């Protein structure tokens, strides 16, 4: 663990990513105790109020302004981080469990199992993700749960492909042979020997997917199929506010900034994790 942090401190980009991400996660966790305005209820009289910058230091009503319904944007962004991050994380984890699971099974058993999985992957690859997501959301309805399912659906394949490749390599590693040689069962080999050794690539895929899923959620919102209101998600805020782009720039700019910063930091963390876990990248020692 110490080397983890010392490695982190050496990588400025990785550190930056971790800090930004931690801020958002903390804000999301602490949202209810920060004493914010309601993110859902607005006041029609306070519609499209511009940001009061001084409000950051001396209490003003809306530091980042209000949206088209008079809701406080700061509060919506902070509460929105809960929705956005939770949806993204849930989708990425769900997709990860499915993808890693299938990847391990396919890579470990190979043969028919593998062939079936690879054909599934082919099918999904040939099916443009965005259209699949749109179709499925349109079919199932844009509830929070369905959005998570859809995003996970577009995500599992990337895990499965990469994990399968990793497993094909790991299963030939001699410690796996050795586990078979001592008579370990299949489950034990999969969980104790293979899974821990493919978790880091899965983690790296996960961070990249997290970034992609957040962007995809925004695109779905743009097409009217994102996380439904009143839950404030960043994508939704961005999409709803887009028509006000030139009259009330703050409605779009701040959630947009939140997305860009989060995706950026997630990517930085992902890159850093890859560098950290990839021995090839870690000098000689």
């Amino acid at each position, binding site marked *: 663990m110490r080397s983890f942090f010392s490695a982190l401190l050496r990588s400025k980009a990785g550190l930056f990513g971790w800090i930004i991400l931690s801020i958002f996660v903390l804000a999301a966790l602490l949202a209810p105790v920060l004493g914010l305005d309601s993110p859902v209820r607005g006041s029609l009289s306070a519609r499209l109020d511009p940001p009061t910058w001084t409000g950051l230091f001396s209490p003003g009503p809306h530091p980042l302004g209000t949206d088209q319904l008079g809701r406080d944007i700061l509060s919506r962004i902070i509460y929105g981080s809960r929705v956005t991050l939770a949806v993204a994380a849930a989708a990425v984890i769900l997709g990860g469990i499915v993808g890693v699971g299938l990847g391990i099974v396919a890579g470990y058993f190979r043969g028919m199992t593998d062939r079936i999985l690879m054909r599934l992957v*082919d*099918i999904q690859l040939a099916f443009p993700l965005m259209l699949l997501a749109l179709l499925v959301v349109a079919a199932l309805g844009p509830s929070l749960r369905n959005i998570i399912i859809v995003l996970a659906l577009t995500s599992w394949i990337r895990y499965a492909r990469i994990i399968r490749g990793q497993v094909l390599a790991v299963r030939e590693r001699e410690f796996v042979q050795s586990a078979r040689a001592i008579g370990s069962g299949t489950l034990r080999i999969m969980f104790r020997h293979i899974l821990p050794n493919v978790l880091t690539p899965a983690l790296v895929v996960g961070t990249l997917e997290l970034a992609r899923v957040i962007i995809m959620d*925004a*695109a779905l919102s743009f097409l009217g199929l994102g996380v439904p209101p009143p839950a404030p998600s960043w994508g939704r805020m961005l999409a709803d506010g*887009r028509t006000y782009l030139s009259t009330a720039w703050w409605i779009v700019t701040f959630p*947009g900034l939140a997305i*860009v910063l989060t*995706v950026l930091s997630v990517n930085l963390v992902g890159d850093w994790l890859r560098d950290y876990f990839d021995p090839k990248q870690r000098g000689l020692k």
Partner: protein
Amino acid sequence: MIRYLLGKLAESAIAIWGVVTIVFFVTRILGDPSALLLPIGASPEEMARLQADLGLDQPLFLQYLSYLGNIATGDFGQSFQFGRPAMGVVLERMPATMELAFTALILGTLLGVVAGTIAALNRGRLAELVVMLFALLGQATPVFWLGIMLILFFAVDLRWLPTGGYGTPAHLVLPAFTLAVFVSASIARLLRSNLLDVLKEDYVRTARAKGLMPRVILVWHVGRNALIPVVTMIGIIMGELLGGSVVTETVFSWPGVGRLIIQAIETKDFPVIQAGVALIAFIFVVINFAIDLLYGLLDPRIRERR
């Protein structure tokens, strides 16, 4: 080689079958199009009659069988909305989609290759930081936001380019650039890490030990090996561009297949959804087939294995 091609062909057929099957069943979950096709005030009887006209009153399984049968002959049925063969409706929009996708792909690949190469060769220097920051921003910016900003700036404020629409090369600039930003960001990041990996390879050391010029090493020894994964990536990106540029097409009023399919999803025009998705899947499969062959050109070991 023949066996390899036949195998590939079979795989492609399975992939397309899977796609058309999924799209068939998902569209049936979409629900009943009759409410959308008829004007307000339509009675349930009218709706029932329309459903019968559209063949939607049949048992699902029978619908599926006749659907598969018709597809085999290239018939995707009559569009509910357009009142003519769905595939025709989709094919009309295909040139626009292809034009945008290929332009974005070529532009994005060029930008991405240049950026990725600059970043990899300037490891640890400012140039790498700047390029990678832009690449990350390119991936972190929602496409529609970028698109709207570009319209406001280049079309409304400067009036250099049209806000949207299709036709002249000028119309192509903004949407293609918007998509290319994302494409180039992905490619730049992938290429950079590939290049860094390949630069560590023993044969690059061999090339340096031969005293070759850096340009020769980069192009012949590093570039070719680093580009192989990029080629795969291009195949996948192409798939996303063909069907996934819906958002860009909407922002720039680009009459592509993506937007058509969105519209068809909104109006539950099943035949158009099916034809559109099937066509995109088909093109994707064909492109990836070509990419597979390209692999062989790039890497003799793969050529040999076939």
